[in-house]
């Protein structure tokens, strides 16, 4: 049946391609004419790719909303380079969180000659897509892909504005060992590039800090039945359960844990640190710990202002990676301004040595394209909300550390 879904998806995608292509022609022709005459404008196309449909669409839409907001702000600011005003156009694409779809939509953006890409959301989609952007010379900033492999491939076009899983997993593993004083840790992952990646690092760093790993189980990113895994884990009597995966699985898993009477502390990484988890898991979420590669919105230097602006525009709260998506977009603009050009090849070198103060804090990249000194925050679920309990590392003053 997956096959049929894929078929339909491909058909839809190709229809969208045709329709999108037509619409674009219509738009670009008059724009080119007017560009030659009175108001001098340069069209800058920015791609945003995330899962816009499917189980993870709430997170993907959140990123798309942020990028659309950033484009609106940038167009209102009337930025001009070389005497021409920049006109930002957002091209949103849906990769369905599917590694097979990611190169397809990436190629579509490359063919449309976008100037830069914000995305993708998942590590599993970001990694295969990054090769296509690299070949096409299109700079890419992922607001959320945390798997280390993404920037380890040696692509000059690949950047990210979040700490990677090595940084995040290490902090979480140490937190489990030292702060939670875990003696028996059980680990579950969803076998995706992201979930397995972060779970591996947590396992390694918790082991190094003296915790025993009593069970290592797997599920998939489509499963809903975790009873068998959880029952097996229960038999090993863990005091902490770490899950490397996404809220879509974590929600029902927490409910099922409660049903089985498992009382171990549940810990996850950024994939479950969403507001959606409370909807999916209900009361069972209470007390869950989750890390996030960044500061909580209210502790971001300009977080409150952004939260308000986002809500005013979209009539909903920030779900997860909206601030990072907004920043990624603005980092591109900053690099374009510095380079005095909107051409990918020209502003790419500026991107590598950017020093930009975003909503999320200072953004600088190391030579691989990873963010320098990305802070990591531990959150606890309390009364249907995430409450920051500790911030570890980061360029921002470490005063928050408790």
């Amino acid at each position, binding site marked *: *049946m997956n096959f*049929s*879904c894929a078929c*339909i998806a491909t058909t839809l995608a190709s229809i969208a391609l045709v329709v999108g292509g037509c619409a674009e022609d219509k738009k670009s022709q008059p724009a080119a004419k007017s560009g030659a005459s009175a108001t001098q404008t340069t069209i800058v196309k920015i791609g945003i790719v995330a899962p816009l*449909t*499917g*189980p993870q*669409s*709430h997170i993907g839409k959140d990123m798309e909303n942020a990028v659309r907001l950033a484009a609106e702000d940038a167009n209102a600011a009337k930025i001009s380079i070389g005497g021409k005003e920049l006109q930002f156009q957002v091209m949103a694409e849906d990769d369905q969180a599917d590694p097979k779809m990611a190169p397809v939509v990436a190629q579509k953006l490359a063919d449309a000659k976008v100037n830069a890409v914000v995305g993708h959301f998942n590590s599993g989609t970001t990694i295969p897509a990054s090769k296509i952007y690299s070949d096409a010379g299109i700079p890419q900033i992922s607001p959320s892909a945390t798997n280390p492999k993404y920037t380890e491939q040696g692509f000059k076009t690949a950047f990210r504005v979040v700490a990677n899983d090595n940084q995040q997993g290490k902090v979480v593993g140490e937190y489990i060992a030292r702060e939670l004083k875990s003696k028996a840790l059980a680990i579950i992952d969803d*076998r995706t590039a992201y979930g397995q990646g972060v779970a591996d690092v947590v396992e390694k760093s918790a082991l190094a800090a003296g915790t025993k790993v009593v069970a*290592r*189980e*797997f*599920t*998939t990113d489509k499963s*809903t*039945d975790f*009873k*068998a*895994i959880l*029952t*097996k884990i*229960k*038999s090993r009597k863990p005091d902490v359960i770490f899950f490397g995966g996404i809220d*879509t699985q974590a*929600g*029902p898993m927490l*409910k*099922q844990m*409660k*049903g*089985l*009477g498992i009382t171990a502390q549940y810990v996850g990484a950024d994939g479950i640190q969403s507001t959606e988890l409370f*909807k*999916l*898991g*209900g*009361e069972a979420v209470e007390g869950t710990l989750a890390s996030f590669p960044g500061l909580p919105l209210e502790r971001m230097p300009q977080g409150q202002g952004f939260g308000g602006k986002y809500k005013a525009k979209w009539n909903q709260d920030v779900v997860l990676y909206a601030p990072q998506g907004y920043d990624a977009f603005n980092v591109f603009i900053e690099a374009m301004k510095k380079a005095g050009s909107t051409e990918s090849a020209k502003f790419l070198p500026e991107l590598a040595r950017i020093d930009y103060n975003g909503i999320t804090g200072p953004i600088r990249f190391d030579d691989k394209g990873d963010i320098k000194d990305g802070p990591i925050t531990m959150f606890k679920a309390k009364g249907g909300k995430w409450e920051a309990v500790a911030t570890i590392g980061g360029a921002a003053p470490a005063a928050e550390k408790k």
Partner: protein
Amino acid sequence: MDIFLQQLINGITLGSIYALVALGYTMVYGIVGLINFAHGELVMVGALTALSVIQALMAAGLGLPPAAVMAAGLLVAIPLCMLLAYAMERIAYRPLRGAPRLAPLITAIGVSIVLQNVAMLFWGRSYFSFPAVFATTTYSVAGAAVTDLQILIVLLAGALMAGLLAIVHRTRLGLAMRATAENAQVAGLMGVDANRAIVAAFLLGAALAAVAGLMVSAYYGIAHYYMGFMLGLKAFTAAVLGGIGNIAGAMLGGLLLGLIESLGAGYIGDLTGDVLGSNYQDVFAFLVLIVVLTIRPSGLLGERVSERS
């Protein structure tokens, strides 16, 4: 021991749900010899409809008791699924009744794809969380955890199956169904309305599927547009395991499959020294299907062969 008991409890709960769905496959097969692959989608439609109704009622804030809210969900889901099953039979299967066996089988797969995509258009591709209608209480039995929801699922499934057996064996409708299953032509000559008996098999199966849909989404806390596919395949496996066309066989097959899956998933890690993990749970169902088809193609209780049963 407590882990064995826990997997046993999980297995029985899952097995009762499989059994309810398997009955739908088996009744239809028994009476028209068709494997209705779209039956799993009825479970999905039932689950999502009940969920939507429950969500709407909760949002309305009428302060109804949980049991009333759940019952309201079922009262909408059951007729809708029955209507859908009727439409399926009338539009897709009846015109093909005399056709070679392969034709209705392919049609069934087509119906399944259509239903899945209609559901996707209607409900979207998102996962729906089952609303917190009631707080489940967990009881501890000899170290294993049992929730009131699990007990409810098993009891309700048992009651429904008893009810179905009563309909099939104690009523005129049941007699007509059995007669049609035996030989539709002869039954017709004796004054049995074969079409009516066939529709009844579809409708009864659909009602059970709707209940199973609500059960499975409440049990796992989640529902989505393609949940019916895997569940349908598993239930089909359960029906084959028990002997397709055989009503008692479907019940036995469902329970057994649930137990095999749970116990298999629970112990495979220990048996293979953690080489294979409990994530191989889904493999067991199909392993069972292969083994049954090779060793005992007619299932544990035997296929219902119309001439000689």
